[in-house]
């Protein structure tokens, strides 16, 4: 049982006990032992819903829950919570991504109350890409709190029914404590430096309160396997559900870009060679992705896969099918 489906009460001293039970389908599937599939959906850049509708169709019945990015790469898009609400009205379960770049602790907590009110059950807590990468490089960054502090704050809200300031989450002294109840996630990057610190950073996030973790996209299976060995050795896989991240390769150029220009992504030369030699790079990329997922299913400690098909949500169904993971459980 993960901590989330377990029942707990509010902080000692509180008059009103509250059952903290996140009704997350993702949490339930993980608890049931299913190898889960999550996918990333980047919200569009205007209020035209057609792009979103198309992406939703691609992922429906394919992903158990869908990550909605939060102004990813610091480019303004429909908000994560707004998009998530739209997704739920279409019968899908979102994972709201929340970064620390654009909001202070007041705004984050207010948005989390709003997300919860609208039915959001899953939250991924992130630092956020630096504003210099996006389309408003002159914006003032916030970083009032960092991702570790965000995780801890959300956990305190859920399990102890208190805001970051320590006040109880209720409308009056007589009212029930009713905090937002999230299945709490974080990110892990096994490839960033210092490499030796990365397992400890995951452990620190677990200590702060995450229930699940999604990794940075994996191309180097050797480095990832070594990282997982350390994770298992420290027993971390028993304290957190680990979803391995993949990003399907669309072209040789894209893979080269990931290798050369994206910090914290490692691409082995053997994979570059394989894609370069392929008749159709994109097909080889999809094949590699499905192979990875089949390997993850055999690796100790991995509870699922997170597919980040950047602006290529169309590819997800084929990958999941080739990995033998369709149909998805209810």
């Amino acid at each position, binding site marked *: 049982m993960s901590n989330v489906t377990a029942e707990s009460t509010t902080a000692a001293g509180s008059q009103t006990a509250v059952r903290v039970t996140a009704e997350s389908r993702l949490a339930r599937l993980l608890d049931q032992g299913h190898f889960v599939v999550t996918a990333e959906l980047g919200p569009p850049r205007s209020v035209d819903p057609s792009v979103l509708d198309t992406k939703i169709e691609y992922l429906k019945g394919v992903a158990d829950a869908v990550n909605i990015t939060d102004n990813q790469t610091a480019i303004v898009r429909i908000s994560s919570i707004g998009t998530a609400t739209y997704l739920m009205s279409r019968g899908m379960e979102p994972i709201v991504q929340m970064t620390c*770049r654009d909001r202070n602790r007041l705004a984050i907590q207010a948005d989390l109350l709003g997300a919860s009110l609208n039915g959001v059950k899953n939250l991924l807590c992130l*630092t956020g890409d*630096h504003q210099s990468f996006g389309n408003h490089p002159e914006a003032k960054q916030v970083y009032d709190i*960092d991702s570790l*502090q965000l995780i*801890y704050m959300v956990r305190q809200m859920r399990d102890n029914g208190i805001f970051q300031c320590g006040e109880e989450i209720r409308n009056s002294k007589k009212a029930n404590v009713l905090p937002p109840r999230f299945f709490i996630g974080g990110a892990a990057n096994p490839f*960033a430096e*210092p490499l030796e610190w990365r397992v400890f950073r995951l452990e*620190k996030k677990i200590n702060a309160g995450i229930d699940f973790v999604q990794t940075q996209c994996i191309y180097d299976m050797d480095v990832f396997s070594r990282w997982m060995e350390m994770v298992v050795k420290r027993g971390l896989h028993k304290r957190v559900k680990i979803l391995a991240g993949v990003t399907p390769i669309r072209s040789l150029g894209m893979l080269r870009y990931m290798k050369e220009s994206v*910090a914290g992504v490692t691409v082995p030369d053997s994979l570059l060679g394989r894609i370069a030699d392929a008749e159709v790079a994109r097909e080889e990329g999809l094949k590699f992705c499905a192979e990875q997922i089949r390997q993850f299913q055999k690796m100790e400690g991995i509870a699922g896969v997170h597919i980040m098909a950047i602006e290529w949500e169309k590819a997800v169904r084929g990958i999941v099918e080739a990995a033998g993971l369709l149909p998805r459980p209810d």
Partner: protein
Amino acid sequence: MIVAEQKPIKDIVAMIPEASSLLVVGCDTCVTVCMAGGIKEVNALTSVLRMARKDIARIEGTSVERQCDREFLEELEESVQAADAVLSMACGAGVQMLSDYFEGKIVLPALNTLFMGSNEEAGYWMERCLGCGDCVLDLTGGICPRTRCSKGLMNGPCGGSEGGKCEVDPENLECGWNLIYNRLKALNRLDSMMEIRPPQNWSTSHDGGPRRLIREDVKL
């Protein structure tokens, strides 16, 4: 020290109003050390302005020990009163002090004040302190995460650290947390990296008007 740099000449030329005399005032402290507003720079700027603003009959230059200190401004009384406008080559604190002291005079800034920092090598200065009012250097091996990390993170490096560099500028910018990690490792204090640092109390930072320090023990 406080590090500053001169504004573009065209901006300085444009901000000076119509006048028959202008006084350029440098400062002998921080901005002299960072070569932005000492007497040398005052003389250079004065020469340039004499060429660029021939409409101003008299442009003189001088400097004082510390523009942010009232006691050093008294000596300027005569020369300031003789000028229509004053161009300060001090940091923002100096400009404001000069403007307060000589109320009624137009005081203009010739510099952009950048940060509190250090001189790393010839021609290279770097920010070292935000002045957040809540120093954590005892916990981070003497390297400030709020200043040195591009996101001011408090709990270790984000995923954008590669080869010891920060993804924000991988050519030139070191990852602050990579530096901290290596320093703590060398000091055999890596354990402290695992402690979850709580959210900062930003009320000691610049978040509510000018910060003030009052010390009864040194009051007269």
